[in-house]
């Protein structure tokens, strides 16, 4: 217990503003468009660096420091590979199987290389993060486990999610020291059960409302604007779906982060509310639609601020002793190819 008492809590803080981010986003987007996408690698670094650079914990901010050239080269390779795929499959449809096998074998490498690129280009207090997963481990945790999850008719999907999160956290390091997470499988099953119950419960409620609206508007118009009620219920289904998916994502994120230690001494804590995230995501979506997209950067800052400020570091020391054991950053190809094909890597 003596270790527990010595922990000092540092809350994460986000100091960026939507107004500032809007200017950065729109100017860089315009530059990307007038250079036919070539500048987009620089735009990506700049917008990401703004979000990282405004994320503070214990008086220091994160830094995102990749070479845009590497990202550009990665993008060129990704686009070329996609074109080769489209042309080949267009002219020789029978080659499609070969492409899928080749791509499947590439996935573990893409995942590792992408996670490594992000980690090694993220710094805190002059020290880089690192990711040290191997090909075979990525194959098991990011490819085989998800397949098992789906083949088992979703019964093992929570277990697969646990495998992925363990791999993600436990292979990250900072200053040569490991991150480590460990939690029971039962906890993650409870969360998935809660998400499914939420979806079915709210879904049943909506179906009941729709049925009532249909009945009420049959021959006698007992409900004003009854004709439109059916349509009005439609967006609610999206909200219910978003709420259920967000519930699972956020609760698993909290679970994982709350059981994560760094260097076996420091702890992390997360108190993100799935309801608050659902509210922010849905209202951001509506405002973005109403402003033909111009609200997007404000929404991104709003969500980032909320999620960041619900995180804490429970530090056992002042972190002065960490030193860098890394010097060379990995290639960006992995991250860019993964980004292009939308693998959506991360917690």
């Amino acid at each position, binding site marked *: 217990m003596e270790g527990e008492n010595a922990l000092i809590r540092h809350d994460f803080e986000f100091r960026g503003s939507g107004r500032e981010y809007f200017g950065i986003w729109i*100017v860089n987007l*315009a530059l990307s468009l007038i250079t036919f996408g070539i500048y987009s690698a620089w735009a990506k670094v*700049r917008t990401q660096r703004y979000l990282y650079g405004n994320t503070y914990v214990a008086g220091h*901010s994160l830094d995102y420091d990749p070479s845009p050239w590497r990202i550009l080269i990665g993008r060129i390779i990704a686009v070329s590979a996609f074109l080769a795929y489209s042309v080949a499959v267009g002219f020789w449809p029978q080659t499609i199987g070969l492409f899928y096998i080749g791509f499947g074998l590439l996935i573990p490498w893409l995942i590792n290389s992408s996670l490594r690129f992000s980690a090694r280009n993220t710094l805190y207090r002059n020290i880089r993060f690192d990711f040290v997963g191997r090909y075979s481990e990525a194959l098991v945790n990011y490819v085989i486990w998800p397949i098992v999850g789906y083949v088992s008719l979703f019964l093992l999907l929570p277990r697969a999610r646990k495998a992925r999160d363990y791999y993600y956290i436990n292979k990250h390091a900072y200053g040569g020291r490991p991150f480590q997470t460990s939690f029971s499988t039962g906890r993650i099953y409870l969360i998935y059960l809660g998400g499914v119950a939420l979806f079915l419960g709210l879904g049943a409620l909506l179906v009941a409302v729709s049925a009532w609206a249909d009945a009420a508007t049959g021959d006698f118009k007992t409900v004003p604007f009854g004709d439109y009620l059916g349509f009005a219920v439609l967006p609610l289904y999206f909200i219910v779906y978003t709420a259920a998916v967000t519930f699972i994502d956020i609760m698993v994120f909290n679970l994982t982060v709350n059981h994560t230690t760094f260097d076996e001494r420091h702890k992390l804590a997360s108190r993100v509310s799935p309801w608050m995230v659902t509210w922010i995501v849905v209202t*951001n979506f509506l405002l973005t639609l109403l402003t033909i997209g111009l609200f997007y950067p404000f929404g991104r800052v709003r*969500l980032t601020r909320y999620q960041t400020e619900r995180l804490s570091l429970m530090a056992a020391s002042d972190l*002065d002793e960490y030193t860098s054991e890394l010097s060379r950053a990995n290639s960006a190809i992995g991250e860019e190819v993964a980004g292009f094909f*939308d693998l959506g890597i991360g917690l």
Partner: protein
Amino acid sequence: MIEGRYFQPRSARFSPARLSRPEKRMLRLEGQDGALIGEFRLKRVRIRERLGNIPRRFRFPDGGMFETMDNDGADALLAGTGRGASTLDRLERSLRWVALSVVIVVAAIYGFAAYGIPLLADELARVTPPNVITFIAQQSLKTLDGRVLSPTTLKPEQKAKAQAILEKAAKHGHLPLKTYRLVFRNAPHVGPNAFALPDGEIVVTDQLFPLIKSDSELEGVLAHEIAHVDRRHGLQSIYQASLVPAAIAVMTGDASQFGQLATLLPGILLQSSYRRSFEQQADDDAAETLKANGEDPASLAHLLLRLDAKVCGKTGCGPSWLSSHPATIDRVNRLMGERKP
């Protein structure tokens, strides 16, 4: 002289420090007490561009790092050296440049959506090899046959009559007569419908025939489908369906949860607007064919009204901006307008 923090080489350990530029191409780093930590040639130091108000960082060749919150001070320190540029930062803060960027982005999005994607899809459809088109069409028909379509129950004389009408309409098509092939299918779950496959097959469901009151009505439908084949609308839709998400991914630049949700709907709306313009083109072509054969373009309109009443009932089929076809009333009015030459 700017105040900040100095991190020792490859270490998280830091101490308060000050940075100055005593000579034009030399930076001097000293502790709070004025004791020299190091002197570095300016060109060997990696200096980040200014960005918002995030800390400005100077990375030294030995792995040490100086960071400061004093961005204005850093700009003043570096003035005239051409290093640690803040040009972009000035654009991002300037109301004028931000406004100009909004105009550029909106114009680019509009231009790409209104002209870029349709042109690109048209060009791709034009260069698609015929064997690929056949492959795609056969695959689609095979998929449908296994699920919603079953063998026709029409009598041979009905089929022969329809074939004769097709040949009459196909005289005004752009392609050789044998390109257009009638395919009859029973489709109880789909109901009255007709659609064209990109290789020239025109599928007509048995359920359409009871609604047809005259030969010119069927001719209108077939001329409409022939136009879809001639103008490669099916192939273009396939290309548009993959170009729209790709374009949106480029715009937002990230695939966060929020981004996906927010971009789904505009994509759907954009694609259905492309489809509606295809339908309008096909209606116009069909009206031309009917007129050229000495028939009334309004006959297609009459059939559309009957179809609408059958499929959608009294309440209608929902708002037109969501559907792939223009509202029937608009199509009917347009066809009626074709009546008087």
